């Protein structure tokens, strides 16, 4: 059954609801509604965002779908207090511009409370439909958690290994 890797991803298309994060407010899913970038944003700003784990543009978030745990009291790899990290998830592959390498990212969800509601982010690099579960960010990957079966709080983006 479940390869014990990868992640959840309920959100699918909540683009316009992106909150928090700040500097680069547009989710890929909202591209249809995208407005021109605000003046003053530079390539350096964009590169900074790719290394900021509270940013939707953080390099590990290339296929994330949900609230960023780094904005919810946790981090890109740790759940916020009082939640439970689901062991069953889905995996993506993301490119780290800092070292030029690709990494396998496990998008474990943090579970057991209502939605965090902060830093909503949906990116879909290599995302697959629901019929390829362990490559789909459209499942609530709190599913199957023995102590918190489906209440979704936020999503982490753990590095598993270098992609080969």
């Amino acid at each position, binding site marked *: *059954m*479940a390869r014990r890797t990868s992640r959840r*991803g*309920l*959100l*699918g*298309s*909540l*683009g*316009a*609801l992106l909150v928090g994060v700040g500097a680069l407010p547009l989710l*890929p*899913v*909202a*591209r*249809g*509604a995208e407005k021109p970038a605000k003046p003053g944003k530079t390539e350096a700003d964009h590169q900074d965002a790719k290394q900021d784990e509270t940013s939707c543009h953080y390099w590990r978030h290339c296929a994330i779908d949900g609230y960023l745990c780094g904005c919810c009291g946790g981090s890109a790899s740790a759940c916020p207090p009082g939640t439970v990290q689901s062991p*069953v998830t889905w995996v993506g592959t993301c490119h780290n511009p800092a070292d030029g390498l690709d990494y396998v990212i496990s998008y474990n969800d943090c579970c*057991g*409370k*209502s*939605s965090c*509601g902060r830093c909503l982010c*949906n*990116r*879909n*690099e*290599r*995302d*697959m*439909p*629901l*019929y*390829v*579960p362990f490559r789909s960010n*459209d*499942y*609530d990957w*709190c*599913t*199957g958690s023995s102590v*918190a*079966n*489906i*209440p*979704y709080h936020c999503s982490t983006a753990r590095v598993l290994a270098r992609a080969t």
Partner: protein
Amino acid sequence: MRTVRTAALAAVLALTCHAHTAVAGPAVTADPLGVVATLPAVASPHWVWVNDIVFSHMSDGQALLVDGDSGRFLGMLSTGFGFERVVLAKDGKLIFSPETYFSRGTRGTRTDVVTLYDPSRLSPVGEIAIPPKRSANMPMMADSELTDDGAFLLIYNFTPAQSITVVDTRSRRFAGEIETPGCALAYPTGARSFFSICADGALLDVHLDDAGHVSSRVHTRDMFDVSSDPVTEKGVRLGSRWLFVSYGGTVYSIDITSRGLESGPRWSLLSDAERRQNWRPGGLQQLAVHATSDRLYAIMHQGGPETHKDPGKEVWVYDLGRHQRVQRIALRSPAGSIQVTRDDRPLLFAAFIGSTTLEVYDAKTGSYLRSVENVGTTPTLLVTP
């Protein structure tokens, strides 16, 4: 000064009293307590259920009913945690809603049920207990569907083991569970049959007996190219055909025949020039069909290969007989979900999970008709009678 003000006020009062006297009619009678509105027994074909997972507060799912002709908000259902969508009984006399609850709101014992609602009163009239396995995912129409004769409700489970819960709507009982390892969702194909889509691009073709148990199951050959350009799971049905569209805009037809499920012709939503301009389909409920005019509606936008969930500001309309586009409808706002009513004066509904405005268009002319504001929180699927 005070005298002037007093005089002016007196004059206004006098005029007001005079005006009231002039239009005086029967006095307003006291309103009785406890009056609750009901809806007509037969739904209008122009009503739409706007299903809402309420992403920011998922224990509070909602289904909101709107009249597309008047823009009037008619009522709603409260539908529990991780709500996907209502399923309307074939005879219109009941609403089925697969729901999940926890004994302490967001924790405690999980209970899954199919709640039965009276469509006139929008109140629960019964419930059917089902295994607490209902899939929690971004809502898709194929999460729950009725067989063609309405006898069985099929509900997709993901724990992450995959299976289908079968509910007998006649006895209002859980009929059983069908394991579908490697295959997801339920697409009805007849009175006693459905298929699931498998991760290898094949279909699991399942037939049921009268008790809702499996009578046959066939793993078909590969129907879809999963590795290079996967179809979305957002298929639409038109009679004996299911239509699926790939990320890149290729239309696949799955034909329901007496010999089983067969691949029909493949064609593209896009010309070469449009493909070069990066046009592609996108959205959560990105396709709709209108049977009598044989039309397919698709939400389109311009974007790269990973924008398959992006909303679009255009709906392209295709003649399914000729596989040719016949119309481009410009939307006022980006849409991720569309639906077309079944009647001969069809409406096109458009919504987006990131907006609370439902837009209504004439589906034949593409003319904008009206917007309905403040419909839900994060609208997902649109379901019409």
